[in-house]
C-alpha cells in the first residue's frame, strides 16, 4: 500500500514538473541550448500569478494566465537582448549566460518582493481518500491544469502552422530555411512559449507549497533531469521524464534516507546518459 501511495505522490509531483520541462525541452529543440534561465522565469511567473491572485483578487485560472504571459514576455525580452548575442559564441557560452541571467533575474524579483515566503489566496482542503490512497483536491486540480496545458501544447505543435514550423526548425534548420520558414520568428515564439510554461510551472509549484525568490532555482534540477531523461528536444519525452523523475524520487524513500532524495535526479541523468544518451523518447543526434 505504501508503494501505491508513493507512486501517487510521484505522479502528482511529476505532472507539475512536466509543464516547465516541456518548456525547457521545446526551447532546446529550436534554439539548441539548455536554457537554465527557466528557473528565474518560473519564479517570475509564480510572483506574477501571486500578484494577480493575492493582491488583485483574481481566481486561480486567470492568475495562471498572468503567470504565462509574464513568464513568456520576460522570456521573449531576455532572449532577444541577453541570450541571443551569446548564441554566436556557441552552446556552452549560451548555457552559462543563461545561468547568469537566472541569478540576475532572481535578484530582481528579490528587489521588488523581498525574501519573504508568500502563499496564494487559496482555501486549503483536507485530502480525499480513494481506495486507501489519499490525494489533495488542489493536487487533482493541478494535475487537470497540467494535462490541459500539455494537450494544448501538443495541439499547437501538431495542428497549427506555427507549431509545424517549429517542429520543422527543430528537425532541420537548413531545410526549414530553404522552405522559407523564418527561424527568428520561430525562435521568438518558442522563447515566449517555453518561458510562459515555466511561469505556469512556477505557479503550480507555489500553489502546492509557497513561493519565495528561490522557488524556481530549487526546481531547476528536477526539471532539467526530466528533460534529459525524457530526451532533450522531445516534448512527449519531457512528460515521460517528469513522471519518471517524480515517481523515482518518491520511491527512493523505500530504499534511501529521505535526505538523499535529490540524488535521484542526478542518478537518473547518469543512468540515462550512460545507457541511452538520447533519452527515453529522444532521437539519436539530439
Amino acid at each position, binding site marked *: 500500500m505504501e508503494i501505491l*501511495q508513493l507512486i501517487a505522490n510521484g505522479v502528482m509531483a511529476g505532472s507539475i514538473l512536466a509543464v516547465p520541462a516541456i518548456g525547457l525541452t521545446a526551447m532546446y529543440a529550436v534554439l539548441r541550448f539548455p536554457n537554465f534561465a527557466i528557473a528565474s522565469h518560473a519564479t517570475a511567473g509564480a510572483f506574477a500569478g501571486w500578484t494577480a491572485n493575492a493582491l488583485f483578487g483574481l481566481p486561480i485560472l486567470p492568475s495562471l494566465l498572468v503567470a504565462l504571459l509574464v513568464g513568456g514576455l520576460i522570456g521573449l525580452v531576455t532572449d532577444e537582448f541577453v541570450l541571443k548575442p551569446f548564441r554566436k559564441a556557441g552552446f556552452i557560452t549560451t548555457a552559462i549566460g543563461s545561468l547568469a541571467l537566472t541569478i540576475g533575474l532572481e535578484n530582481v524579483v528579490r528587489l521588488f518582493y523581498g525574501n519573504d515566503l508568500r502563499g496564494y489566496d487559496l482555501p486549503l482542503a483536507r485530502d480525499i481518500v480513494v481506495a486507501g490512497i489519499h490525494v489533495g483536491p488542489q493536487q487533482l486540480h493541478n494535475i487537470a491544469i497540467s494535462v490541459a496545458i500539455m494537450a494544448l501544447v501538443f495541439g499547437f505543435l501538431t495542428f497549427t502552422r506555427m507549431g509545424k514550423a517549429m517542429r520543422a526548425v527543430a528537425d532541420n534548420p537548413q531545410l526549414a530555411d530553404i522552405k522559407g520558414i523564418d527561424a527568428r520568428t520561430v525562435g521568438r515564439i518558442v522563447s515566449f512559449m517555453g518561458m510562459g510554461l515555466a511561469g505556469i510551472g512556477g505557479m503550480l509549484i507555489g500553489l502546492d507549497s509557497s513561493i519565495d525568490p528561490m522557488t524556481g532555482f*530549487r526546481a531547476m534540477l528536477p526539471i532539467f533531469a526530466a528533460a534529459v531523461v525524457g530526451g532533450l528536444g522531445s516534448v512527449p519525452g519531457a512528460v515521460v521524464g517528469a513522471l519518471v523523475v517524480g515517481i523515482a524520487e518518491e520511491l527512493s524513500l523505500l530504499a534511501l534516507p529521505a535526505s538523499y532524495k535529490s540524488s535521484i535526479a542526478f542518478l537518473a541523468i547518469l543512468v540515462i546518459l550512460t545507457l541511452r544518451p538520447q533519452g527515453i523518447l529522444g532521437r539519436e543526434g539530439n
Partner: protein
Amino acid sequence: MNRRSFLAGTACLTASLGAPAVLRAQGSVLKLGVLTPLTGAGSQDGPRMLKAMQAVVDEVNKAGGVLGRQVALIVEDDQTNPEAAVRAAQKLVGVDGVPVIMGTWASAVTSAVAPVCWESKTALMTVSGADSITQLPHQGYIFRTQPTTTLQATKHAEYIASTGAKKVYYLAVQTPFAVPMKDIMANVLSGNGASMVGGLVYEPSKTSYRSEIDRALAAKPDMIYLNSYSPDVTVLLKDLFRAGYTGGRLTQSYAYNTKVAESLPAEVTDGLVNVQPSSDIDSAAFSLAQKRLGLEAPDSYEAQATDWASLALLAIEKAKKATGTDIRDNVRAISQGGGTKVGSAVEGLKLLREGKDVNYDGVSGPCDFNEKGDIIDCRFRYGLAKGAKIELIKVV
C-alpha cells in the same frame, strides 16, 4: 592633471605604502566583519541581525567611537550557503582584515567558516546551535550566544513531556544538529514518561513532503517536532493539514515566524507551538535595545546581534588593540566577573575609558561564556500560533 603632477602623486602614494602599517592605521576607521544570511533560508533573520549590529555601531560612533576611531561594519551575505560563506569570510579576513566576523546563522555555514577564522586569528560570533561547532579546535576564537543543541533539546523535550504528549515523532531538515538532537530528545522524553516513536531527516527545499509526512503519520504520533527552516516548515504544515493530522506540533521560532504565519491560513497553523531562546526581557539591556531599534520586543536574534557588536567593541576597548586575538582574550574580562554591570556598549566604553572594570549583561542574557565559548545559561520562550499571530504561552 599633467604628467608631472601625476608622477609626483604616484610617487607619494607608493612611498606611503612603504610606511609602517601603524602610521597608516592611525585615526582610520575600525572595521568589523558581518557575515550573515541576507538571502537563502536565513534571510528572514540576517537583515534584522545586521540592523541590530548597525544600531549599536551607530550609537557608539555618536558617542566618540572606540580607541578614538569610528567603527564601520563590512557586510557580506553568506547566502545561507557554506561555500558562498567561506568565500565571503576569506574576503573579510584577507582583504578587509577584520578582527571579528559576526552573524553566521546556519550551523553548516558556521562550521565551514570557523576554520577560516581561527587560522587567521579572527574572532567568530554566531547564533548557530550545533554542539559540534564549539567542539572544533577553534583555540577560543568562537563565541556562541545561542544555547547549544544539548541545552535546547533537553529543554524542548521537557516542555513536550509537560504538555502530556506521549508519542513524539521527530521530523528534521538535514543539518549538523539534526541527528544528535533527536538522540538527546529521545533520552529526555523516556525519562519523563513519553517516548520518541520515530524520526526522519529530510532534504531541504523540496516542493512537497507528502511522502515524508505519510511516513511520520504511520507511526501515529500525538506530537510532531518539526526541526526545520521556514521554507520547509510552510510545506510541512500544509501537508500535515491535508493529511488530516490533528495532534500537537512544535517548531523553532526561526522556522515559524510572523512572516510564515501570514503566508498560511489560520486553520493550518492554529495550535502550533514555537520556541526560541528568550531575550532577557527584564534586563536594562533589553529596554535599551527596545529604544535603539524602535521595537516593542526585539527577538532572540536581534538580541544576540546587539550583544556581539557590544562584546566585540568592549573587548577592543579593554585590550586597547583591535586584533582577533585581543577580542578572544578580553571578551570574558568584560562580560563576566566582578565589574560594574552595564547593559550597553556606550555605557561600558565610558567606564572602561575611566579605567573601571565592567560586566556586560546583554539583551540575550548574561553573556557569560564557558571555556569552549558557549553561553552558560539561557531562558526559552514558548508561543502559540493563533490566527496570524503568535501568543506568548510562557518563558521558562
